[in-house]
């Protein structure tokens, strides 16, 4: 018995059959999409993890350097030294389409090309440790931006995979079986109707013949 109420009509049957074809096709396509997304995701997430470990290590080292730098100079001097940065970082984001998921790709530009512009202070009042600290942080910056791109891609892909997986499962375990069930129900109901009208016709034919020829009476008179 069908779970939902369906009208056992030919029109409904045609509609359901069409729906089943679409659902099966959609299911196949979505399954392929899921598999491909998964493949891309697995590659990307491995890179992401490796990159993250590297960046975290780099930042940790840089932080240590900053602590050392801070120890050898007064807080005010440090604040003043970093107060007015010379350098600026701009990002250009282009879109890359991975299985219809838009993921950003970053391309970064600095305001000035001079790599020494990260030192935004005169060297007279600051310790050399600060230079080291800033340098170590500057070295890790390209990796940080790469990490941002990879990690964002992973986040977007993983949510898309989750959505696709749900759709695949819904089609596979709910929509398709339900439609098949309904098609079966309608087919059986229509067949049943056909048989019953056939029988009705046979019966009527019998009755009409009986009326015309009075078979039963003749049988009795024999």
């Amino acid at each position, binding site marked *: 018995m069908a779970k939902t109420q369906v009208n056992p009509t030919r029109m409904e049957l045609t509609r359901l059959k069409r729906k089943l074809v679409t659902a099966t096709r959609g299911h196949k396509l979505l399954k392929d999409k899921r598999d491909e997304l*998964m493949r891309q*995701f*697995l590659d990307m*997430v*491995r890179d*992401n*993890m490796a990159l*993250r*470990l590297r*960046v*975290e290590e780099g*930042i*940790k080292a*840089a*932080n240590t350097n*900053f*602590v050392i730098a801070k120890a050898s100079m007064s807080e005010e001097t*440090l*604040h003043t030294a*970093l*107060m007015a*940065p*010379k*350098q*600026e*970082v*701009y*990002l*250009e*984001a282009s*879109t890359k389409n991975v299985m219809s998921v*838009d993921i*950003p790709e*970053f391309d*970064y530009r*600095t*305001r000035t090309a001079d790599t020494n512009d*990260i*030192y*935004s202070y005169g060297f007279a009042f600051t310790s050399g440790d600060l230079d080291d*600290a*800033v340098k170590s*942080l*500057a070295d890790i*910056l390209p990796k*940080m*931006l790469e*990490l*941002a*791109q990879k*990690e*964002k891609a*992973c*986040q*977007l*892909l*993983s*949510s898309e*995979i*989750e959505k696709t997986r749900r759709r695949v499962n819904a089609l596979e375990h709910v929509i398709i079986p339900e439609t098949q069930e309904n098609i079966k129900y309608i087919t059986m109901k229509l067949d049943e109707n056909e048989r019953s009208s056939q029988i009705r016709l046979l019966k009527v034919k019998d009755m009409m013949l009986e009326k015309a020829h009075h078979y039963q009476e003749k049988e009795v008179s024999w």
Partner: protein
Amino acid sequence: MYKVAVIGGYDSIYGFAALGLDTYPVENSAEGVKIFRQLADGGYGVIYITEALAGELSAELEKYKEQYLPAVIQIPGVSGNTGAGIAGVKKSVEQAIGSDIIFGEQ
């Protein structure tokens, strides 16, 4: 054209100012939420946030996870690594696959 922001405790982020990133030092989570919202809608492509602050703003961060931009990336602060960034990567694996079969044993 996007800019890059760093948000977190002052001691953890002041160095990034020298590189030309916009730093936004915050002292408590209420202030953090306010500034983070401003940044997220303020034309920033990437927002780096210290793990300590991210832990307090997890609900806010979740909102931007599925958005194209900004990319909100956790970085360790000066007080050490809480492992939240790595946990985030593992979480996305879990979301995609169902269980973490890649980094599970690490």
